[in-house]
């Protein structure tokens, strides 16, 4: 598992390796590792979720991790004793139905030599976490629910985030569970609000 220190060390090494190999790379990251990088949670995380590639001021879906970056990440994993998949594009499908409006303006960029890590903003991470929490609802001790609590969201934020999750899953079943999750946070959402 990656603690905040491990994650920082891994990214520092990855950036240094990329620089040494004459490669520049920009990645858009979300998930628990992003919350960790922003100091919003303290729990260790399994991996760094890459959803997009940042290039020329634009983001595109990370259909796959570019080969030179993937090779460097594997070499870093071997050297630091991390899992081979510590940097992966698992949740890249979030890109398919669009990211929350204005997400670009909330991104924070960290530079590790020639590696640019674009970290989604707190509100965007809240949207993704709410979506994941509903998706995993019913699973005891969901880490996503725990992360949501750590974010300490306000009611308006949760309502806005809930509306965004509906763009990704407009089904009735999802809406019912969304209402239940919101209730956990003391938000009594109505059909109309969602």
């Amino acid at each position: 598992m990656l603690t905040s220190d491990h994650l920082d060390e891994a990214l520092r090494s990855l950036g240094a390796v990329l620089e040494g190999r004459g490669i520049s790379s920009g990645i858009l990251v979300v998930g628990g590792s992003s919350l960790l990088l922003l100091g919003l949670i303290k729990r260790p995380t399994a991996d760094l979720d890459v959803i997009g590639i940042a290039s020329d001021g634009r983001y595109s879906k990370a259909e796959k991790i570019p080969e030179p970056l993937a090779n460097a990440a594997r070499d870093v994993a071997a050297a630091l004793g991390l899992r081979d998949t510590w940097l992966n594009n698992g949740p890249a499908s979030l890109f398919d139905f669009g990211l929350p409006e204005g997400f670009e303006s909330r991104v924070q960029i960290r530079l590790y030599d020639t590696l640019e890590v674009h970290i989604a903003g707190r509100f965007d991470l809240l949207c993704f976490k709410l979506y994941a929490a509903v998706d995993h609802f019913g699973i005891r001790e969901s880490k996503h629910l725990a992360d949501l609590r750590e974010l300490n969201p306000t009611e308006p934020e949760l309502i806005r985030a809930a509306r965004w999750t509906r763009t990704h899953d407009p089904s009735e079943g999802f809406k019912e569970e969304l209402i239940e999750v919101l209730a956990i946070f003391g938000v009594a959402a109505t059909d109309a609000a969602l």
Partner: protein
Amino acid sequence: MPPSSTTQSVLAEYELSLAWGAWVELGVSGWQPTHVNWAVDPEPLIIHTAYLADADPRLRDEALDWCIQYWRYVSKVRLRNLLQGRSAEVLDAWGPFGATVNKHSGSHWPLGTESFPYRLTGRSSLDAMAQPSRAWLRLRAMFGLGARTEILRYFLSDHPRATVATIAQHVGYAKRSVADECDSLEKAGVLKVQHTANRFYYTLAHGDEFRAWVGGIAPVQPNWTALLAVTSTFVALEESAKSLSRDALSVEAHRAARLLDGALDTLGIEQRPRLAGGKDHWPVVRDFAKRHMAAWAAGKWGTTALPQT
């Protein structure tokens, strides 16, 4: 001369000492012989010497002199096969070297580009091949250049039995050529074939008699392709150490150690750098490289020859 321990490029100097030692055994004008116990394989050494040209122009010039005089003992097929898939840096260095040999001799070595101005030094001498270190050249003088000779070299290098695929992998000739020549050598009674579990294993039919007839063979018979892959990887790392950050160097050192696993196996070296996850790997890899390359530079082989840390 062994490099001083304070030298920045100590591994590079060890590598040059190894190359010089090998060339002196082949008849290049050089210092005192250090590798009399090593059986030298010319093609990997020639390719690598072209790559080392910038590091030691005198070595390049003396090696060129030898190549221009004795190119008939060098296999262009094997050169081509060994150059296949090599890095752009190796091919870039090879192009002018090969072209210069071609310009001054009757050779048609592959992948030559533009020759460079060169005057023969005339100092190389291959007056006899009785020396054990010249055993592989002697085989060529006996049986000619080609896969057949390299197959015999393979079996004379302490390889008791092998399939065609394994032999081809070691000798630098295509599997098809090796298969044809193994078949001929078996028909001639030089090799014998054993059929085990759907595979054909070849072995020398009369090993002791054949060895006695071929003459003295130096006891140190490394796979030179693997050996020079190991040395050049370590030297490249040492060079990188001058510019890379500590974090990057640690990762690259770990990667190099992993990549060299197969080559070290081929050389029969069981020891490996002791790498622990998350540590600074370069000092461990450098120490491993220094111990082995210091021994090789001095013409020593085997774990007992390694200097103490």
